[in-house]
């Protein structure tokens, strides 16, 4: 379990670094002139694919990414990379097992934002929005807008403090920026940075521990770490046990009725 988690995560960190150099190479070789904006937009997607088919990891093998792992909500790869790095700092890989990236949390969040949650469909949205210091739920911004604003602000902070993007700074530097967001010390438009951070933190835990059908908790690794058995029909036989009973977790895929 831990081994697997380490592998997934190491791979993606290395991929990221190699991607940056391969992007530069690609741009040079094709002789394309790109402005600052192109790296994160149309060309970015193209480059990602090119990179993914070309690059080998250190052990020479490549695990295919699940076909459900493509971005629905985040149009800019740049934003998504910040999301990956930030969620990984909130829920890092360690001896217990995989971190947010290894669990698929960033794709989980992407899928959530692409659906009704991202546009606050079940919420009361009529103005005026008069709350001072609104929480994410009370904000005039949708959850999708808050994520975009917040992730870009993280990158801006990184640029202004360390002269480079959030993905390229050291873990301690990433933590320093995130801690400033968490304490509300970064100025953001329309919402306190702490409110954005609360949303990000909660969404990270949701991704780590929700049923794998939502795209996070990959291979039920989140539940394994948490010793949560998942969708179990009955605990009638163990409920009165004095000692802890460990169980292999079951996801809804193996619980719900199927034809």
């Amino acid at each position, binding site marked *: 379990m831990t081994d697997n988690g380490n592998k997934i995560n190491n791979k993606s960190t290395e991929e990221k670094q190699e991607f940056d150099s391969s992007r530069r190479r690609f741009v040079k070789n094709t002789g394309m002139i790109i402005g600052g904006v192109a790296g994160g937009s149309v060309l970015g997607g193209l480059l990602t694919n090119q990179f993914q088919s070309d690059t080998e990891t250190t052990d020479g093998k490549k695990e295919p990414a699940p076909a459900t792992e493509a971005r629905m909500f985040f149009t800019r790869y740049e934003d998504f990379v910040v999301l990956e790095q930030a969620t990984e700092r909130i829920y890092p890989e360690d001896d217990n097992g995989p971190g947010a990236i290894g669990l698929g949390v960033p794709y989980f969040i992407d899928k959530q934002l692409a659906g009704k949650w991202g546009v606050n469909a*079940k*919420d*009361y949205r009529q103005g005026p929005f008069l709350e001072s210091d609104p*929480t994410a739920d009370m904000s005039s911004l949708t959850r999708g807008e808050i994520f975009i604003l917040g992730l870009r602000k993280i990158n801006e902070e990184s640029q202004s403090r360390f002269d480079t993007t959030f993905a390229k700074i050291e873990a301690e530097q990433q933590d320093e920026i995130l801690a400033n967001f968490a304490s509300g010390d970064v100025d953001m438009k329309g919402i306190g940075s702490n409110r954005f951070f609360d949303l990000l933190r909660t969404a990270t*835990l949701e991704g780590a521990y*929700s049923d794998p059908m939502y795209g996070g908790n990959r291979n039920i690794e989140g539940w394994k770490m948490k010793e949560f058995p998942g*969708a179990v029909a009955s605990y009638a036989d163990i409920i009165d046990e*004095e000692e802890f009973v460990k169980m292999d977790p079951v996801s809804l895929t193996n619980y719900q009725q199927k034809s």
Partner: protein
Amino acid sequence: MAEKLDRVDVVIVGSGWAGGIAAAELSKKGYDVVCLERGKDHSTEDFIGAKDELKYSRRIEMFQDLSKETLTIRNEMDEVATPHRSNETNPINGTDTGGSGVHWNGQIYRWLPTDFEIRSKTIEKYGEDMIPEEMIMQDWGITYDEIEPYYDKFEETIGVSGEQDPLRPEMSRPFPNPPLKETATTRLFKKTTKEMGYHPYHMASANVSEQYENPDGETINACVYCAFCEQYGCDFGAKADPIVTVLATARRHDNFELRNNSYVVRILHENSRATGVRYVDTQTGLEYDQPADLVVVGGFTFTNTRLLLLSEIGKPYDPVANTGVIGKNITTHSPNLTHLRVRGFFDNKKFNRYAGSGALGATMDDFNLEQLDHTELDFLHGFLIRSTQLGTRPITHNHVPEGTPTWGQEFKDKSLFYTHRNLDIQQQNGVLPWRYNYMDLDPTYKDAFGDPLLRVTSKFHDQDRNIVRYAHQRGKDILEKMGADHITVPEITDETEFDHTSLGDHTAGGVIMGDNPETSAVNNYSQMWDMENLFVVGASAFPHNSSSNPTNTVGALTYRATEGMIEYLENDGGLLIEPETERSKS
């Protein structure tokens, strides 16, 4: 223009416990009954395989669609209220067939004899000076002995599984089913508290311990402790809910119809008589008038209050002039005060916290209203204490000892380590009403149909904070004795205030009962003093909130109300009770 439908004998607003009990009792008597429910139809079939924490506990699937209607909230009369925008901040109201009764926990308590005569008893024991200024505590116009048979009736309907509380009055007969099973945590709680000289017992439950057939012939299955209970529908038909009990009973009768997606917007009336209700079919947007001889409103505290205000029935409460009744005495068990929990972390003990059921736990009344001498205390009423085993799901439960960061490696490590190594002690205190805590219509915000939202004005008082602080210390004592290595006691400062996380499914008041029309809206049959053929049922009738969960009392008062409704229909009307005339309030 609303289309006028054919007249029926009775129209009921809401299909929760309150509406459902009325539906069953009136259908059994042969009356033509239509029950209007704003939410969708669903049944036990929809709950099979619903073990999905993200959907039900985080996205709050089973609660009211706030895009259509919500509440606005403020602390004081000179402030502008802001809307409660998302269930994810705080889920408040149920919706859909069966209402909150489908996704409730099923924790069952009767209220205390003193609750029903709280003002008289407080004055008798301590003198009137003991009641703080602005606390508008009042008697209910009914006694415990009068309500006892109706408690019994509701308990039989839902197959309560439990045992006699050693500190409450002897019940006229035992609960219909034995208590749920013991767990390592209930055993530890009972052993510890007994050693401390207290009187623990197994919490009574509507998660039924053995397969059971209720007096109406409905079967409730045995609970399997599946741990997806609170906020979930039961996929085993083992939690007593309105769908498997009272609504099933009503549906056996052709003279009963449940109409879903029917949003009631007005109670119609002429010459002080209700003539029916107006509703919107939310699937077509068309408006209908449903005429009826008797109107029952069971849409929960907020809807009950709001429909009366929108329909201009009864006199709206004015806290400044201290006149009127509709909207007064709002009280609740606030998640950010009453329901804060003391938590103990055990470095060397591991419990099966993932398993459980909505109402599994041990509880005690040693600090409840009738056990305390308030002379030396800085609060009135009392509290229960309990330790529950509901099943801790992984997104919601990531508790760590004080001083641990809330994110990052240490957080991850400790939250994993303590997942099954923590226990909480919950207190639940009685909440008494204050003069400037009330409900009226909001001047700014509207619902999807263009009607004003309900506005809640409410503040915590010192008494509200003091009782919780005191109770938390008692919880801490118990956890220390249990051997917890780290204990977290929630901080309650003088700034801890009523806010958008303070309302809940235990909110009461707005259309309160009593024996005097000047200080109450309904009599003890839940019949409106100002409109004899209108019955408003549910926790809206409670003049205050006791220390235990409300639904047994909702059920009991509704059974009593249905007797009144039947008497009213059989005898062609009239008030069922003579009103007291003098203003009983000081």
